[in-house]
């Protein structure tokens, strides 16, 4: 990837910089259509690929622009851009006269304010200009075509010649008006200066879109034509502009007095060039070299560029030609599309509540819901509940719990969201009941904020449904939430007491038995993770797993069916990284059987009918969709 040439100071910059490292000018234009580095990288994008000719069109651009940009003082760039801005935003306004007037106005002192502004604003408009990809970029090459045309040979002769023709078209009005209008410029200045400051907020697209489409028409028509064949007839609005006579302003004397005072000497030196014939840029160049000393250091070559700027008949011509680059063509095509879409009534504008989609969605919902509702209401028990033996992991889980000595400390991580309680609560409640029957000391932690509440309510439920015990189960400590995700978990694995020093009841549980014997997570008799998120499960396996394997502490998991396929590999792995696994509703019910809890009151039947119905919906829906598409296609053919 080649360096990015700063459009402002022309120095090369590494491609990944946003700002020029020398002058802090933004290097990247808005829009994806032509960010320099992305172009070189993304060979497949529609904006950059295709056209093989593009290569030689693009190649000379950056370097050429850089030389020139170097040689153009800011204020001049600014005014030209501003002129372009004007003529783009509202095509009716700028007459060639007005323009050339503007350039003249640059020669009169009051045009210094732009350059004398403090940097912040300066950056601001430059940036905004560069942002408006259509405006900022394209000029330099044109200037190049302009000034030392004979000196550096441009690869595109057509634009050049064409430009001269167009130049001819406007030359007459341009020159004549220029003479009479040049004095009135001061009056115009505030107007274009305002616009200049505003240029960062004026948005071409915005205007086009919010406003009526008329002004766009020319732009839209103009460019594609040029794309098609280079010979372009002038857009009518420009022809119009030629004839517009801007009214001479009344305040002219008010501002003119200051004019003669601060004329820089180099400008004096330039006066003659107005009379000099256009075909003598060489002399100007030589002149430029001398002028470099003085207030305008670093503006060497100003003069060489200058004649092109002040030559009255030129600006209108290149201003027309210039605004056609690939970017703009792409943008204009887009605009065309948008306009085309505008003409059609867009569905987005008037979104009806009842669309075929909504109806289809509604039918799907009803078809899915009704049978399940019926199963729940009837509390049907027809479908055979899953057997522990058929579901790998369940039996291992039970055995691991059975192995636990009575009163052993068990770490339970409630890492599932409340949304999955419908799926997981059956399994979790059964696990809790089994642990309570072994009067295990439950240490509850959570890496999700909803965990602690889930844990508390589930323990209350489980202990209430516990057979043969009265009152709530108190043999547990709820340590609450571990903030910090992976890092929190790592800290927890290494030293739980420093991460979670107190229980949610704010007592220091680590002082008393059995937790006082626990230094690290591996000292627990078992670690049970309840989660719906495979990533959380993986973090547990990765961060805590190694520690647990060292001590041979079993890591058991209760997961949602959505995480099962990703956790099962760890269970199947040799050596197993997860020693027991209960997954989803089926796992929960199967586990229920192992602890003698058989009640399922219609859930399993609803589940099985739900699965059957959704199978049919997907199958029929897909077939119907394909068929309807085929029919539509055949209709089109006919």
């Amino acid at each position: 990837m080649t360096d990015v040439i700063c459009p402002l100071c022309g120095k090369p910059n590494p491609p990944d910089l946003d700002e020029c490292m020398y002058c802090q000018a933004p290097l990247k234009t808005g829009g994806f259509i032509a960010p320099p580095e992305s172009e070189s990288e993304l060979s497949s994008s529609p904006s950059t690929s295709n056209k093989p000719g593009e290569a030689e069109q693009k190649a000379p651009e950056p370097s050429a622009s850089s030389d020139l940009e170097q040689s153009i003082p800011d204020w001049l760039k600014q005014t030209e851009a501003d002129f372009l801005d004007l003529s783009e935003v509202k095509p009716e306004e700028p007459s060639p006269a007005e323009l050339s007037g503007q350039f003249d106005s640059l020669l009169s002192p009051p045009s210094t304010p732009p350059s004398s502004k403090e940097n912040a604003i300066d950056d601001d408009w430059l940036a905004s200009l560069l942002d408006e990809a259509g405006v900022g970029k394209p000029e330099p090459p044109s200037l190049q075509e302009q000034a030392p045309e004979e000196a550096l040979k441009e690869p595109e002769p057509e634009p050049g010649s064409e430009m001269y023709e167009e130049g001819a078209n406007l030359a007459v009005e341009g020159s004549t008006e220029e003479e009479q209008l040049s004095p009135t410029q001061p009056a115009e200045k505030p107007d274009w200066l305002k616009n200049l400051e505003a240029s960062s907020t004026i948005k071409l697209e915005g205007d086009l879109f919010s406003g009526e489409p008329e002004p766009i028409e020319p732009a839209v028509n103009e460019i594609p034509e040029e794309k098609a064949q280079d010979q372009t007839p002038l857009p009518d609005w420009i022809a119009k502009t030629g004839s517009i006579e801007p009214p001479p302003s009344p305040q002219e004397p008010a501002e003119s007095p200051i004019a003669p005072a601060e004329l820089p000497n180099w400008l004096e030196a330039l006066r003659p060039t107005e009379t000099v014939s256009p075909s003598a840029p060489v002399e100007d160049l030589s002149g430029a070299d001398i002028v470099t000393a003085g207030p305008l250091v670093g503006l060497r070559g100003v003069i060489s560029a200058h004649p092109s700027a002040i030559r009255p008949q030129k600006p209108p011509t290149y201003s027309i030609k210039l605004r056609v680059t690939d970017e703009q063509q792409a943008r204009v095509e887009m605009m065309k599309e948008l306009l085309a879409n505008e003409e059609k009534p867009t569905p987005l504008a008037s979104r009806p509540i009842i669309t075929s989609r909504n109806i289809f969605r509604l039918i799907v919902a009803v078809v899915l819901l009704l049978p399940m509702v019926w199963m729940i209401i009837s509390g049907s028990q027809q479908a055979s509940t899953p057997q522990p033996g058929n579901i790998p992991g369940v039996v291992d889980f039970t055995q691991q719990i059975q192995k636990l000595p009575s009163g052993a400390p068990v770490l339970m991580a409630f890492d599932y969201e409340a949304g999955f309680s419908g799926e997981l609560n059956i399994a979790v409640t059964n696990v809790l009941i089994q642990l309570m029957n072994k009067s295990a000391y439950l240490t509850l932690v959570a890496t999700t904020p909803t965990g602690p509440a889930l844990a508390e309510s589930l323990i209350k439920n489980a202990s209430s449904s516990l057979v043969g015990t009265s009152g709530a189960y108190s043999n547990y400590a709820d340590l609450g939430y571990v903030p910090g995700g992976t890092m929190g978990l790592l800290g927890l694995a290494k030293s739980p007491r420093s991460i979670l020093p107190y229980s949610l009841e704010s007592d220091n549980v680590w002082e008393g038995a059995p937790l006082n014997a626990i230094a690290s997570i591996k000292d627990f008799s078992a670690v049970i993770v309840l989660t719906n998120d495979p990533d959380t499960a993986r973090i547990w396996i990765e961060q805590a797993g190694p520690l647990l394997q060292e001590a041979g502490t079993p890591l058991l998991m209760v997961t949602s069916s959505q995480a099962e396929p990703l956790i099962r590999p760890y269970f199947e792995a040799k050596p197993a990284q997860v020693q027991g696994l209960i997954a989803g509703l089926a796992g929960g019910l199967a586990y229920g059987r192992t602890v003698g809890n058989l009640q399922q009151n219609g859930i399993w039947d609803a589940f099985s009918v739900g699965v059957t119905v959704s199978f049919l919906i997907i199958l029929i829906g897909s077939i119907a969709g394909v068929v309807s598409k085929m029919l539509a296609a055949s209709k089109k053919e006919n």
Partner: protein
Amino acid sequence: MLEQINQLADPIGAIIGFLLTIMVLSYIIGDNALFRLAIHIFIGVASGYAAALILYNVVLFQVLVPVIQMFSTGKTDGLVTYAFRVLPAVILGIWMLTKASPRLARWGTPVLAFLTGVGAATVVAGAVRGTLFPQVGASMNLLNIHTAPAELNNLVGWFINGLVILVGTITTLIYFQFGIKSQEEGAPVQRSVFMEYISTVGQGFIVITLGVLFTGVYIAALTALIDRIRFLWDTLHIF
């Protein structure tokens, strides 16, 4: 009085749950005001609970309580550890709160830089130690002759499955290859035929995986739907 409220609380909670469930399920028909209301209540409650919980677990238990205990019990031996492990974090935390004001925001950036650096390191280490090595190791172990079953018919199945997983893993990995040998200017960018075949196989495996996972997700959601129906019916039963 409080007992009465407590007794009332459960049925009231059930009714609230009932109404909220209906309001949310109404999104199936279309986006509507009831749904909006329900989710805004929900966002407030969920975020509020999380915020309070974190205040409890971090600000209270890790920052305040230790200090209070130290000075109440007079045991200041933990002071040094506290000064190293907690105090700087608290200072940084307060410093980071400057992010709340647009004017001061820039000054809080160093703290975020610190967080980002630590996070990036954790991410890298976790990915290498936690995912890359275990997964690659597991893939290698698929065809470990020492773990092969003894019986011949099982052996065949074991070998074929192992081979399939191996091929699947490798082709999936290769499918993601991004770079392509640079061709002459203007030529359409495409992979070599060999690569095309391999990545098509890989794509097949990816799609099957996604299909399996999609079903898992769907089943989880379906279970939730059943749970809601169950809940609505039970709540109706209460009254």
